[in-house]
């Protein structure tokens, strides 16, 4: 079976697994997890330089790994609370990582890390005018997603559940609605995925890809978990393309019984 491609911003990708790079126990485990996942897109961040504290070599080995496997970088604007902050950080990321791709995050609530829809749309509009390829992290609200498309986003990344919660797809109805109302738009479930079954479910719903981090990096064996997610994502996509059967309220016998000579009183 050959993997079916998708093409965010015209870049054809065979992997539907976008992987975060934070929280791994060591740079070596991060590199091995990337290799095991089969991902072609990994997320990275920026932070203020502090006198104390390096990054323990994570970025160096990440760059080496990406050179070897050819995966692309997707920098994020994590930690931004306003459109202005996010726009500024995005420009920095473009210079530092030499890519116009940006995972736009404008957080509106500290407890849930729920995206601010107004700030996200405002920032997306400006960034697209500035030449960025914006991957907005957003909620599963249909109208917000439509507004993001209106300002020029070509990919949407609605949450499955709050970041790092591992709850899976807490509102499948909203996600199904997005898929049905936005045909042809690359949709990525970003955040909240805790288990490979959650990722498979997203792909079975017709989502084009998933983005996750903690479910792999916090596993007892991240490398094996990365592989498990890769398999689940491939299975979920294959199932979607094969056509998942519609659920029925009542039993529907699978074994043909007409004409069988049994149960005759």
């Amino acid at each position, binding site marked *: 079976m050959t993997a079916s491609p998708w093409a965010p911003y015209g870049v054809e990708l065979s992997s539907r697994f976008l992987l975060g790079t*934070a929280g791994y126990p060591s740079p070596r485990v991060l590199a091995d997890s990337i290799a095991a996942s089969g991902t072609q897109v990994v997320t990275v961040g920026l932070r203020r*330089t502090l006198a104390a504290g390096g990054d323990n070599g994570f970025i160096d080995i990440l760059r080496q790994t990406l050179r070897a496997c050819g995966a692309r970088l997707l*920098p994020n604007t*994590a930690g931004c609370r306003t459109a202005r902050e996010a726009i*500024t950080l995005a420009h*920095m990321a473009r210079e530092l990582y030499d890519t116009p791709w940006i995972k736009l995050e404008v957080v509106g609530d500290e407890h849930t890390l729920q995206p601010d829809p107004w700030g996200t749309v405002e920032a997306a509009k400006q960034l697209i005018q500035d030449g960025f390829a914006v991957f907005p992290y957003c909620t599963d609200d249909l109208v917000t997603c439509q507004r993001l498309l209106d300002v020029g986003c070509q990919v949407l990344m609605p949450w499955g559940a709050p970041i790092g919660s591992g709850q899976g797809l807490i509102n499948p109805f909203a996600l199904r609605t997005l898929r049905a109302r936005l045909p042809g738009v690359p949709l990525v479930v970003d955040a909240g995925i805790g288990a490979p079954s959650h990722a498979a479910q997203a792909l079975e719903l017709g989502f084009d890809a998933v983005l996750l981090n*903690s479910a792999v990096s916090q596993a007892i064996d991240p490398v094996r978990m990365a592989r498990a997610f890769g398999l689940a994502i491939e299975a979920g996509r294959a199932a979607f393309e094969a056509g998942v059967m519609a659920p029925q309220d009542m039993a529907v016998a699978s074994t043909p019984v007409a004409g069988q000579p049994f149960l005759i009183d």
Partner: protein
Amino acid sequence: MTHALHQPTAALTFNDLTLPCPEGLTLGALLAAQQVNAEQVATAVNGRFVPRTQRDTTPLQPGDTVLTFQAIVGG
């Protein structure tokens, strides 16, 4: 009567440091003086992004806040 003249030192903030800000100092010169690898950071002055190509022509004033940002892992 002698008055001790106490001129406040012209200073700026560079990340978590307070540094002198001599007249004519540019962002590029500040980074060089602080031995910052200019290719490995992005810069902002008073919250505004300053592209790499504009660092040598961006003057700094006393009271400015200069921040550098570096690549890190992220989700």
